[in-house]
């Protein structure tokens, strides 16, 4: 088997995760937040698959598949919420959604 070694994948995974996390933390549009979330998940998936390959154990890849399924469901719900917000003509700004403030 050839190709880059596992640490290279892990670096890319970490970069992806950090990019996603930054996006979640600093962007205010829910659409972008959702997008960044997907990037974080994919970073994690990449790490899972990399370790799976290195350890020669297939369960990491199964995890990655499960994460994808969860991510797909999450996107459905998240996008549904965003569409509902748009229909009600609410501002697409997560900072304005602060009804649960104590």
């Amino acid at each position, binding site marked *: 088997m050839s190709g880059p070694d596992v640490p290279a994948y892990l670096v890319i995974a970490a970069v992806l995760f950090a990019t996603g996390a930054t996006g979640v933390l600093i962007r205010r549009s829910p659409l972008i937040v959702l997008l960044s979330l997907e990037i974080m998940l994919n970073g994690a998936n990449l790490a899972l698959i990399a370790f799976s390959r290195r350890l020669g154990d297939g369960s990491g890849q199964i995890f990655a598949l499960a994460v994808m399924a969860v991510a797909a469901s999450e996107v459905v719900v998240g996008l549904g919420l965003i569409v509902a917000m748009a229909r009600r003509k609410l501002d697409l700004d997560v900072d304005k959604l602060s*009804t649960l403030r104590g």
Partner: protein
Amino acid sequence: MTPAAWVTLLLPAAGALVITGLGTAISRRVAAWIATLACLGSFAAAVVSFVDMLGRAPDNRAELSTAWTWFSAGSFNVGFSILVDQLAVFMMLIVSGVGSLIVLYSIGYMDGDDEERRYFAYMSIFVFSMLLLVEGGNFLFLLIGWGMVGLSSYLLIGFHHERPSAVAAAKKAFVMNAVGDAAMALALFLLIQKTGSLEYGVVFGRAGDQTPLVLNLVALGLLAGAVAKSAQLPLHTWLPDAMEGPTPVSALIHAATMVTAGVYLIVRTHPLFELAPHVQDIAAGLGAATLLMAGLIALVQTDIKRVIAYSTMSQIGYMFLGAGIGAYASAMFHLMTHAFFKALLFLGAGIVIHALSGEQDIRRMGGLRHLMPKTYLAMLVGALALTGIPPFSGFFSKDAILAGAMDDGAYGYVLWVVGLAGAFLTGLYTFRMIFVVFGGEPSAAVREHPPHEEHDPLVKWTMAVPVGVLTVLAAIGGGLQFAGVWTSVSNFLDPVAEPLVEASGTQEAITSVVAVLLGAVGIGVAWWIYSARRAPAPKPVVALERKLWFDEAYDLLFYWPAAVTASAFNGLERGAVQGSITAVVDGVRALALRVRSIQTGLVRTYAFAIAASLAVLVLVFVSVR
């Protein structure tokens, strides 16, 4: 003999069940007649048992009949049984006989009341309960009858349940009776423990082996029950209030059922009382004290029914006196004549009250003699019998009790004197009532509602017949026994309860002369003050008007301590229990107020918190490794 006694017992119960079961399917009149016929049938069956009994030898007259075993536990078992002996039959005749007359009278008296069906069902239950009490073949059924009499009286005293005073009076009667019931139940538990049985015969047979303490406790418990039911000192305060019930109910409570139960109890359980002579002395003493006190209070009462109610307490006092000194047959005989003349007085008073549209205050009556001559005659006979003027019935029975007291040593003489003082008071308060109600000129209230007895639809034949029958009985009923000359009642009852005292002919003669003279003097004084008005009526003594402050004393002794304790505990509960809970709630709320500022509602803050924590955790893990 016993089949007829079972019929006597169960017919009134059946009557009540039928009236209740048919409900509104029958008219009020039909319900009334069902109750009346049930009681009359009961009386007829009692007469059958009586005749049957007379055909037997005097020592072979008691018969125990058990329907089935009520319950059994180990060696202890109690049957649903009735004991038919001379005492039971004597009581059965009075209860069902006078009871059915009163129920018949109620048909006319209660006509037009909204809840006649309920009334007549209660009346039947009342008669049934009393019959169960007197026929019960063991202590358990005595106690069941005892409790049911209390319940029936509660239901009937509170019959006018829309009147708060009636409800209060019913509750008072029930609570006072419950005190007695509880004492009696404790005595029975003691009997079960010590003798292992509740059968009369077994208990009396084994009573002699018990220690004096046990015997005294048992007798005291039974006496407490008797005192509560018979409205004697110190548990008498319910009786005058019980006048809130309809007048025939008062007649039933006072004449046929309920208050006579205490006397019956003492006579029925006389072997136990004879083994506890001090308790017997207490019974006689309580009777004497009650007859004197009730006589005094009756002098100042202004409600016609309350005057008669206090006279009942007084007369039951005589019976307790008699039963306490051991003159059992005399006490029972007085119970019988008292049933006649007291029912008569109440039913007569009922006619007066009815005629005057519910007026009960004797100060607003007067001059009824010419307007209601027949009622006047009936009440006069009742009053003379109550006072004990010969040849009316009270003379024969009351004097025999007092003569018996003369035969009971020094204590007996004290009782004798008190009893004679009571005789004077009886004449005075009874004829005060008669003169004020019937004598003089018609008062304003009477002129407003002039009663016309002859054509008055108020006095129906159903009311007139019982009063007529009772008038005859009150007049001549005492002739059954003339102490020392012929003694049919004593002969009949003595096999059940052998008397402890035997008055000599001289004692009988002295007592009779003195008692009749004192009664006559009482009547004379009443005539002097209230009819001839030669002397101004003395101002009523406050102590008597307030009934010697018994109600107030009980308030102070029982109500206030309970109320104060309760309010103290209420404060404790509010302060300690409820307070600690509120304190916890307040503490949590104050803490939450501070913590809530963490909840910004901004999703990004939360996300940052998670990311930062994660970063810290990663750093920690890495550095620790």
